[in-house]
Protein backbone atom coordinates (compact mmCIF):
# COMPACT_ATOMS: atom_id res chain seq x y z
CA UNK A 1 0.00 0.00 0.00
CA UNK A 2 1.37 3.45 -0.91
CA UNK A 3 1.46 6.01 1.89
CA UNK A 4 -0.24 9.38 1.39
CA UNK A 5 2.88 11.04 2.84
CA UNK A 6 5.05 9.58 0.08
CA UNK A 7 2.68 10.73 -2.69
CA UNK A 8 2.35 14.20 -1.09
CA UNK A 9 6.14 14.55 -0.85
CA UNK A 10 6.46 13.63 -4.53
CA UNK A 11 3.63 16.02 -5.45
CA UNK A 12 5.37 18.84 -3.57
CA UNK A 13 8.41 18.26 -5.73
CA UNK A 14 6.32 19.37 -8.71
CA UNK A 15 6.48 22.93 -7.37
CA UNK A 16 10.27 23.51 -7.65
CA UNK A 17 10.37 21.73 -11.00
CA UNK A 18 7.71 24.01 -12.46
CA UNK A 19 9.15 27.16 -10.83
CA UNK A 20 12.57 26.20 -12.25
CA UNK A 21 11.20 25.68 -15.76
CA UNK A 22 9.11 28.88 -15.56
CA UNK A 23 12.21 30.86 -14.47
CA UNK A 24 14.24 29.42 -17.33
CA UNK A 25 11.53 30.22 -19.87
CA UNK A 26 11.11 33.74 -18.50
CA UNK A 27 14.80 34.52 -18.55
CA UNK A 28 15.48 32.98 -21.97
CA UNK A 29 12.61 34.90 -23.55
CA UNK A 30 13.75 38.08 -21.83
CA UNK A 31 17.35 37.66 -22.94
CA UNK A 32 16.51 36.69 -26.51
CA UNK A 33 16.40 39.47 -29.10
CA UNK A 34 13.06 40.84 -30.25
CA UNK A 35 10.40 43.07 -28.75
CA UNK A 36 7.07 41.36 -27.97
CA UNK A 37 5.19 44.68 -28.10
CA UNK A 38 6.56 45.40 -31.58
CA UNK A 39 5.74 41.84 -32.69
CA UNK A 40 2.11 42.25 -31.62
CA UNK A 41 1.71 45.78 -32.89
CA UNK A 42 3.39 45.05 -36.22
CA UNK A 43 6.42 46.57 -37.89
CA UNK A 44 4.46 49.54 -39.26
CA UNK A 45 2.66 50.44 -36.02
CA UNK A 46 3.01 53.93 -34.59
CA UNK A 47 5.22 54.50 -31.56
CA UNK A 48 2.21 55.46 -29.51
CA UNK A 49 0.45 52.20 -30.31
CA UNK A 50 3.57 50.19 -29.44
CA UNK A 51 3.70 52.02 -26.09
CA UNK A 52 0.02 51.18 -25.51
CA UNK A 53 0.72 47.50 -26.18
CA UNK A 54 3.72 47.64 -23.84
CA UNK A 55 1.53 49.08 -21.12
CA UNK A 56 -1.23 46.55 -21.63
CA UNK A 57 1.31 43.70 -21.37
CA UNK A 58 2.92 45.26 -18.30
CA UNK A 59 6.31 45.49 -20.02
CA UNK A 60 6.91 48.89 -18.41
CA UNK A 61 6.90 47.43 -14.90
CA UNK A 62 10.22 46.57 -13.20
CA UNK A 63 11.47 43.18 -14.36
CA UNK A 64 10.99 41.54 -10.95
CA UNK A 65 7.34 42.57 -10.99
CA UNK A 66 6.99 41.00 -14.45
CA UNK A 67 8.74 37.88 -13.13
CA UNK A 68 6.40 37.61 -10.14
CA UNK A 69 3.35 38.14 -12.35
CA UNK A 70 4.62 35.54 -14.80
CA UNK A 71 5.08 32.96 -12.03
CA UNK A 72 1.61 33.71 -10.63
CA UNK A 73 0.04 33.32 -14.09
CA UNK A 74 2.02 30.16 -14.79
CA UNK A 75 0.82 28.68 -11.48
CA UNK A 76 -2.74 29.02 -12.83
CA UNK A 77 -1.74 27.84 -16.33
CA UNK A 78 -2.66 31.25 -17.71
CA UNK A 79 -0.44 32.22 -20.62
CA UNK A 80 -2.60 34.81 -22.31
CA UNK A 81 -3.35 34.72 -26.01
CA UNK A 82 -1.30 33.73 -29.01
CA UNK A 83 0.31 36.74 -30.76
CA UNK A 84 0.87 35.30 -34.19
CA UNK A 85 0.22 31.59 -34.79
CA UNK A 86 -3.50 31.74 -33.89
CA UNK A 87 -3.94 35.43 -33.17
CA UNK A 88 -6.19 36.27 -30.20
CA UNK A 89 -6.80 32.60 -29.36
CA UNK A 90 -6.10 31.65 -25.73
CA UNK A 91 -2.91 29.59 -25.45
CA UNK A 92 -4.80 26.95 -23.48
CA UNK A 93 -7.10 26.36 -26.45
CA UNK A 94 -4.19 26.13 -28.89
CA UNK A 95 -2.42 23.65 -26.62
CA UNK A 96 -5.58 21.61 -26.09
CA UNK A 97 -5.91 21.10 -29.83
CA UNK A 98 -2.26 20.09 -30.36
CA UNK A 99 -1.34 18.20 -27.19
CA UNK A 100 -3.30 14.99 -27.94
CA UNK A 101 -1.33 14.55 -31.18
CA UNK A 102 2.01 14.44 -29.37
CA UNK A 103 0.64 12.43 -26.48
CA UNK A 104 -0.76 9.81 -28.85
CA UNK A 105 2.57 9.55 -30.61
CA UNK A 106 4.55 9.30 -27.37
CA UNK A 107 2.13 6.78 -25.85
CA UNK A 108 2.23 4.42 -28.85
CA UNK A 109 5.99 4.88 -29.11
CA UNK A 110 6.36 3.94 -25.46
CA UNK A 111 3.95 1.03 -25.90
CA UNK A 112 6.09 -0.36 -28.73
CA UNK A 113 9.25 0.24 -26.69
CA UNK A 114 7.93 -1.49 -23.57
CA UNK A 115 6.17 -4.39 -25.30
CA UNK A 116 9.24 -5.28 -27.35
CA UNK A 117 12.04 -4.09 -25.07
CA UNK A 118 11.05 -6.04 -21.95
CA UNK A 119 10.68 -9.50 -23.57
CA UNK A 120 13.82 -8.97 -25.65
CA UNK A 121 15.77 -7.94 -22.55
CA UNK A 122 14.59 -11.01 -20.61
CA UNK A 123 15.35 -13.30 -23.55
CA UNK A 124 18.78 -11.77 -23.92
CA UNK A 125 19.56 -12.26 -20.21
CA UNK A 126 18.22 -15.80 -20.00
CA UNK A 127 20.16 -16.84 -23.11
CA UNK A 128 23.31 -14.93 -22.16
CA UNK A 129 26.16 -15.10 -24.70
CA UNK A 130 24.05 -16.98 -27.25
CA UNK A 131 23.34 -15.82 -30.83
CA UNK A 132 19.98 -14.42 -29.64
CA UNK A 133 21.76 -12.37 -26.97
CA UNK A 134 24.32 -11.01 -29.42
CA UNK A 135 21.65 -10.12 -31.99
CA UNK A 136 19.50 -8.40 -29.38
CA UNK A 137 22.45 -6.40 -28.08
CA UNK A 138 23.49 -5.36 -31.59
CA UNK A 139 19.86 -4.40 -32.29
CA UNK A 140 19.70 -2.35 -29.08
CA UNK A 141 22.96 -0.58 -29.84
CA UNK A 142 21.76 0.22 -33.36
CA UNK A 143 18.42 1.47 -32.03
CA UNK A 144 20.12 3.82 -29.57
CA UNK A 145 22.63 5.07 -32.15
CA UNK A 146 20.40 5.75 -35.15
CA UNK A 147 18.95 9.28 -35.06
CA UNK A 148 15.25 9.86 -35.75
CA UNK A 149 15.91 12.29 -38.60
CA UNK A 150 17.66 9.47 -40.43
CA UNK A 151 15.54 6.44 -39.48
CA UNK A 152 12.29 8.32 -40.18
CA UNK A 153 12.95 9.11 -43.86
CA UNK A 154 14.48 5.62 -44.27
CA UNK A 155 11.27 3.94 -43.06
CA UNK A 156 9.17 6.23 -45.27
CA UNK A 157 11.33 5.30 -48.25
CA UNK A 158 11.07 1.57 -47.55
CA UNK A 159 7.52 1.05 -46.30
CA UNK A 160 5.70 3.93 -47.98
CA UNK A 161 7.53 4.68 -51.22
CA UNK A 162 9.03 1.32 -52.24
CA UNK A 163 6.60 -1.21 -50.75
CA UNK A 164 3.56 1.09 -50.59
CA UNK A 165 2.26 -0.62 -47.43
CA UNK A 166 1.82 2.43 -45.24
CA UNK A 167 1.01 6.14 -45.72
CA UNK A 168 3.85 8.64 -45.68
CA UNK A 169 2.40 11.43 -43.53
CA UNK A 170 -0.54 12.82 -41.55
CA UNK A 171 -2.68 11.25 -38.83
CA UNK A 172 -5.53 9.86 -40.94
CA UNK A 173 -6.64 9.80 -44.59
CA UNK A 174 -7.79 13.19 -45.88
CA UNK A 175 -11.11 11.54 -46.83
CA UNK A 176 -12.20 11.50 -43.18
CA UNK A 177 -13.18 14.36 -40.92
CA UNK A 178 -11.95 13.48 -37.44
CA UNK A 179 -13.01 16.79 -35.93
CA UNK A 180 -16.64 15.67 -36.26
CA UNK A 181 -16.06 12.70 -33.95
CA UNK A 182 -13.53 14.34 -31.60
CA UNK A 183 -13.85 13.15 -27.99
CA UNK A 184 -10.35 12.63 -26.59
CA UNK A 185 -8.33 14.14 -29.44
CA UNK A 186 -6.47 10.83 -29.83
CA UNK A 187 -7.49 9.81 -33.37
CA UNK A 188 -7.16 6.06 -32.86
CA UNK A 189 -9.35 6.17 -29.75
CA UNK A 190 -11.90 8.58 -31.22
CA UNK A 191 -12.40 6.50 -34.36
CA UNK A 192 -12.80 3.40 -32.21
CA UNK A 193 -15.33 5.16 -29.98
CA UNK A 194 -17.24 6.27 -33.09
CA UNK A 195 -17.33 2.63 -34.18
CA UNK A 196 -16.03 3.45 -37.65
CA UNK A 197 -13.61 0.62 -38.44
CA UNK A 198 -12.44 2.08 -41.76
CA UNK A 199 -11.40 5.29 -40.04
CA UNK A 200 -9.79 3.34 -37.21
CA UNK A 201 -7.72 1.23 -39.62
CA UNK A 202 -6.66 4.39 -41.45
CA UNK A 203 -5.61 6.04 -38.16
CA UNK A 204 -3.65 2.97 -37.07
CA UNK A 205 -1.90 2.68 -40.46
CA UNK A 206 -0.87 6.34 -40.19
CA UNK A 207 0.42 5.81 -36.65
CA UNK A 208 2.59 2.73 -37.34
CA UNK A 209 5.61 4.42 -38.92
CA UNK A 210 5.99 7.46 -36.61
CA UNK A 211 5.32 5.41 -33.47
CA UNK A 212 7.82 2.78 -34.63
CA UNK A 213 10.50 5.39 -35.17
CA UNK A 214 10.37 6.65 -31.59
CA UNK A 215 9.45 3.19 -30.27
CA UNK A 216 12.63 1.62 -31.61
CA UNK A 217 14.80 4.07 -29.66
CA UNK A 218 12.77 3.42 -26.53
CA UNK A 219 12.88 -0.35 -27.08
CA UNK A 220 16.64 -0.31 -27.46
CA UNK A 221 17.26 1.35 -24.10
CA UNK A 222 14.62 -0.68 -22.25
CA UNK A 223 15.92 -4.02 -23.57
CA UNK A 224 19.48 -3.06 -22.64
CA UNK A 225 18.39 -2.12 -19.10
CA UNK A 226 16.17 -5.17 -18.75
CA UNK A 227 18.99 -7.52 -19.76
CA UNK A 228 21.44 -6.00 -17.33
CA UNK A 229 18.91 -5.88 -14.48
CA UNK A 230 17.68 -9.43 -15.11
CA UNK A 231 21.25 -10.79 -15.21
CA UNK A 232 21.83 -9.25 -11.79
CA UNK A 233 18.62 -10.73 -10.39
CA UNK A 234 19.23 -14.19 -11.87
CA UNK A 235 22.45 -14.46 -9.84
CA UNK A 236 20.66 -13.78 -6.55
CA UNK A 237 20.40 -16.49 -3.88
CA UNK A 238 16.61 -16.56 -3.85
CA UNK A 239 16.57 -17.40 -7.56
CA UNK A 240 19.01 -20.26 -6.99
CA UNK A 241 16.87 -21.48 -4.06
CA UNK A 242 13.72 -21.46 -6.21
CA UNK A 243 15.50 -23.47 -8.90
CA UNK A 244 16.93 -25.88 -6.29
CA UNK A 245 13.42 -26.51 -4.98
CA UNK A 246 12.52 -27.83 -8.40
CA UNK A 247 10.74 -24.83 -9.87
CA UNK A 248 10.96 -24.58 -13.66
CA UNK A 249 13.33 -22.05 -15.21
CA UNK A 250 10.58 -20.03 -16.90
CA UNK A 251 8.45 -19.82 -13.76
CA UNK A 252 11.48 -18.80 -11.65
CA UNK A 253 12.41 -16.00 -14.04
CA UNK A 254 8.88 -14.69 -14.53
CA UNK A 255 7.56 -15.15 -11.00
CA UNK A 256 10.59 -14.25 -8.87
CA UNK A 257 12.96 -12.41 -11.19
CA UNK A 258 10.69 -10.22 -13.29
CA UNK A 259 9.27 -8.06 -10.50
CA UNK A 260 12.67 -7.24 -9.02
CA UNK A 261 14.34 -6.78 -12.38
CA UNK A 262 11.63 -4.30 -13.39
CA UNK A 263 12.55 -1.73 -10.68
CA UNK A 264 15.42 0.02 -12.52
CA UNK A 265 13.64 -0.49 -15.87
CA UNK A 266 10.54 1.38 -14.65
CA UNK A 267 12.76 4.34 -13.73
CA UNK A 268 14.21 4.38 -17.23
CA UNK A 269 10.73 4.27 -18.76
CA UNK A 270 9.82 7.40 -16.79
CA UNK A 271 13.02 9.27 -17.56
CA UNK A 272 12.63 8.31 -21.20
CA UNK A 273 9.18 9.83 -21.47
CA UNK A 274 10.83 13.25 -21.61
CA UNK A 275 13.08 11.96 -24.35
CA UNK A 276 10.05 10.68 -26.24
CA UNK A 277 8.38 14.08 -26.04
CA UNK A 278 11.59 15.64 -27.37
CA UNK A 279 11.82 12.94 -30.03
CA UNK A 280 8.22 13.64 -30.97
CA UNK A 281 9.29 17.12 -32.15
CA UNK A 282 11.51 15.54 -34.83
CA UNK A 283 9.09 12.73 -35.63
CA UNK A 284 6.19 15.16 -36.06
CA UNK A 285 8.28 17.16 -38.50
CA UNK A 286 9.43 14.12 -40.50
CA UNK A 287 5.90 12.68 -40.76
CA UNK A 288 4.11 16.05 -41.11
CA UNK A 289 1.98 15.57 -38.01
CA UNK A 290 1.04 18.89 -36.44
CA UNK A 291 1.58 18.28 -32.74
CA UNK A 292 2.79 20.32 -29.81
CA UNK A 293 6.44 19.83 -30.81
CA UNK A 294 5.89 21.37 -34.22
CA UNK A 295 3.89 24.14 -32.55
CA UNK A 296 6.83 24.91 -30.23
CA UNK A 297 9.33 25.09 -33.09
CA UNK A 298 6.98 27.35 -35.07
CA UNK A 299 6.33 29.59 -32.03
CA UNK A 300 10.07 30.00 -31.41
CA UNK A 301 10.66 30.87 -35.07
CA UNK A 302 8.00 33.60 -35.20
CA UNK A 303 8.46 34.83 -31.59
CA UNK A 304 5.01 33.87 -30.28
CA UNK A 305 6.14 34.03 -26.63
CA UNK A 306 2.90 32.99 -24.88
CA UNK A 307 2.81 29.78 -26.94
CA UNK A 308 6.48 29.07 -26.15
CA UNK A 309 5.88 29.57 -22.42
CA UNK A 310 2.73 27.47 -22.39
CA UNK A 311 4.24 24.63 -24.41
CA UNK A 312 7.44 24.35 -22.40
CA UNK A 313 5.58 24.40 -19.08
CA UNK A 314 3.11 21.81 -20.36
CA UNK A 315 6.02 19.56 -21.35
CA UNK A 316 7.54 19.99 -17.89
CA UNK A 317 4.22 19.33 -16.17
CA UNK A 318 3.62 16.15 -18.18
CA UNK A 319 7.15 14.94 -17.55
CA UNK A 320 6.86 15.44 -13.79
CA UNK A 321 3.45 13.78 -13.69
CA UNK A 322 4.80 10.73 -15.51
CA UNK A 323 7.68 10.57 -13.07
CA UNK A 324 5.27 10.77 -10.17
CA UNK A 325 3.50 7.77 -11.66
CA UNK A 326 6.86 6.02 -11.98
CA UNK A 327 7.71 6.73 -8.34
CA UNK A 328 4.39 5.30 -7.23
CA UNK A 329 4.86 2.17 -9.37
CA UNK A 330 8.39 1.93 -8.02
CA UNK A 331 7.16 1.98 -4.43
CA UNK A 332 4.52 -0.68 -5.22
CA UNK A 333 7.23 -2.97 -6.61
CA UNK A 334 9.57 -2.33 -3.69
CA UNK A 335 7.90 -0.84 -0.57
CA UNK A 336 11.34 -0.13 1.00
CA UNK A 337 11.73 2.78 -1.43
CA UNK A 338 9.12 4.80 0.49
CA UNK A 339 11.51 4.84 3.44
Amino acid sequence: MISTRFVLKRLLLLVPVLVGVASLVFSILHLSPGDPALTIAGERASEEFVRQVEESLGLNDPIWVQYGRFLADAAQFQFGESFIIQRNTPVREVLASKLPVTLELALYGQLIGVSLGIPLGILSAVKQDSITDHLTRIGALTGISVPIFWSGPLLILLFAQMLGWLPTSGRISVLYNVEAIRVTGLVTIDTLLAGNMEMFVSAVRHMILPASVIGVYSMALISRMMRSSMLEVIRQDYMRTARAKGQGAKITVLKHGFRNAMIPVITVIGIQFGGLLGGAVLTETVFAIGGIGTLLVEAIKVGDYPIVQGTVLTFAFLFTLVNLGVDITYSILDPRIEQ
Partner: protein
Amino acid sequence: MPAEPDHPTEERPPLVEQATVRLRIVGTAVLVGVLISTGALAGTVLAGAYATSVDTAFALGSLVFGFGLLGWSGAVALGRGIESMQNHLDTGTGWTEPDARRAMARILGFGLGVMLGTMGFGSVLVSA
Protein backbone atom coordinates in the same frame (compact mmCIF):
# COMPACT_ATOMS: atom_id res chain seq x y z
CA MET B 1 36.50 21.05 -0.95
CA PRO B 2 35.46 17.39 -0.73
CA ALA B 3 31.70 16.69 -0.71
CA GLU B 4 30.15 15.93 2.64
CA PRO B 5 29.35 12.23 2.99
CA ASP B 6 25.79 11.05 2.39
CA HIS B 7 24.78 9.30 5.60
CA PRO B 8 22.47 6.27 5.69
CA THR B 9 19.08 7.09 7.31
CA GLU B 10 19.95 5.68 10.73
CA GLU B 11 23.30 7.53 10.92
CA ARG B 12 22.11 10.94 9.77
CA PRO B 13 23.04 13.91 11.98
CA PRO B 14 20.28 15.78 13.88
CA LEU B 15 17.84 17.87 11.85
CA VAL B 16 19.23 21.18 13.16
CA GLU B 17 22.71 20.20 12.01
CA GLN B 18 21.40 19.14 8.58
CA ALA B 19 19.49 22.43 8.25
CA THR B 20 22.60 24.42 9.21
CA VAL B 21 24.69 22.67 6.56
CA ARG B 22 22.03 23.30 3.90
CA LEU B 23 21.57 26.90 4.97
CA ARG B 24 25.32 27.45 4.79
CA ILE B 25 25.52 25.98 1.28
CA VAL B 26 22.67 28.14 -0.07
CA GLY B 27 23.37 31.17 2.13
CA THR B 28 26.99 31.64 1.08
CA ALA B 29 26.00 31.27 -2.57
CA VAL B 30 23.24 33.88 -2.12
CA LEU B 31 25.72 36.25 -0.52
CA VAL B 32 28.20 35.80 -3.36
CA GLY B 33 25.40 36.43 -5.87
CA VAL B 34 24.28 39.62 -4.10
CA LEU B 35 27.84 40.95 -3.91
CA ILE B 36 28.69 40.16 -7.53
CA SER B 37 25.45 41.59 -8.97
CA THR B 38 25.64 44.72 -6.83
CA GLY B 39 29.30 45.25 -7.78
CA ALA B 40 28.60 44.70 -11.47
CA LEU B 41 25.60 47.03 -11.49
CA ALA B 42 27.51 49.70 -9.59
CA GLY B 43 30.16 49.42 -12.31
CA THR B 44 27.57 49.97 -15.05
CA VAL B 45 26.19 53.04 -13.20
CA LEU B 46 29.68 54.50 -13.02
CA ALA B 47 30.11 53.79 -16.72
CA GLY B 48 26.75 55.49 -17.34
CA ALA B 49 25.11 52.53 -19.05
CA TYR B 50 22.75 51.11 -16.44
CA ALA B 51 19.46 51.54 -18.38
CA THR B 52 19.09 47.93 -19.53
CA SER B 53 21.73 46.36 -17.28
CA VAL B 54 19.30 45.87 -14.35
CA ASP B 55 16.90 43.93 -16.59
CA THR B 56 19.69 41.88 -18.11
CA ALA B 57 21.29 41.13 -14.72
CA PHE B 58 17.94 40.04 -13.27
CA ALA B 59 17.20 37.85 -16.30
CA LEU B 60 20.66 36.25 -16.02
CA GLY B 61 20.08 35.69 -12.31
CA SER B 62 16.72 34.04 -12.97
CA LEU B 63 18.36 31.89 -15.66
CA VAL B 64 20.93 30.60 -13.17
CA PHE B 65 18.28 30.26 -10.44
CA GLY B 66 15.92 28.35 -12.77
CA PHE B 67 18.72 26.06 -13.91
CA GLY B 68 19.80 25.38 -10.32
CA LEU B 69 16.25 24.80 -9.08
CA LEU B 70 15.45 22.47 -11.96
CA GLY B 71 18.72 20.63 -11.47
CA TRP B 72 18.15 20.33 -7.73
CA SER B 73 14.60 19.02 -8.06
CA GLY B 74 15.70 16.75 -10.90
CA ALA B 75 18.46 15.34 -8.70
CA VAL B 76 16.01 14.77 -5.83
CA ALA B 77 13.36 13.18 -8.04
CA LEU B 78 15.47 11.17 -10.46
CA GLY B 79 18.92 11.02 -8.88
CA ARG B 80 18.73 7.50 -7.47
CA GLY B 81 17.20 6.26 -10.71
CA ILE B 82 19.97 7.85 -12.78
CA GLU B 83 22.62 6.36 -10.49
CA SER B 84 21.02 2.93 -10.86
CA MET B 85 20.70 3.36 -14.63
CA GLN B 86 24.37 4.27 -14.91
CA ASN B 87 25.34 1.20 -12.90
CA HIS B 88 23.19 -1.11 -15.01
CA LEU B 89 24.39 0.30 -18.30
CA ASP B 90 28.03 0.19 -17.13
CA THR B 91 28.38 3.89 -17.80
CA GLY B 92 29.29 4.95 -14.27
CA THR B 93 30.79 8.43 -14.29
CA GLY B 94 30.98 8.92 -10.56
CA TRP B 95 27.88 11.13 -10.66
CA THR B 96 25.94 10.86 -7.41
CA GLU B 97 22.62 12.25 -6.30
CA PRO B 98 23.90 13.96 -3.08
CA ASP B 99 26.76 15.65 -4.94
CA ALA B 100 24.43 16.85 -7.69
CA ARG B 101 21.94 18.14 -5.12
CA ARG B 102 24.63 20.13 -3.28
CA ALA B 103 26.08 21.56 -6.48
CA MET B 104 22.66 22.59 -7.73
CA ALA B 105 21.81 24.14 -4.34
CA ARG B 106 24.87 26.36 -4.68
CA ILE B 107 23.94 27.32 -8.25
CA LEU B 108 20.34 28.16 -7.34
CA GLY B 109 21.57 30.12 -4.32
CA PHE B 110 23.91 32.14 -6.51
CA GLY B 111 21.11 32.87 -9.00
CA LEU B 112 18.80 33.89 -6.17
CA GLY B 113 21.53 36.17 -4.82
CA VAL B 114 21.93 37.86 -8.21
CA MET B 115 18.15 38.35 -8.43
CA LEU B 116 17.98 39.80 -4.91
CA GLY B 117 21.00 42.02 -5.45
CA THR B 118 19.54 43.33 -8.71
CA MET B 119 16.16 43.95 -7.11
CA GLY B 120 17.75 45.88 -4.26
CA PHE B 121 20.01 47.89 -6.53
CA GLY B 122 17.24 48.53 -9.05
CA SER B 123 14.85 49.73 -6.33
CA VAL B 124 17.49 52.14 -5.02
CA LEU B 125 18.06 53.46 -8.55
CA VAL B 126 14.33 53.97 -9.12
CA SER B 127 13.86 55.81 -5.81
CA ALA B 128 17.00 57.96 -6.31
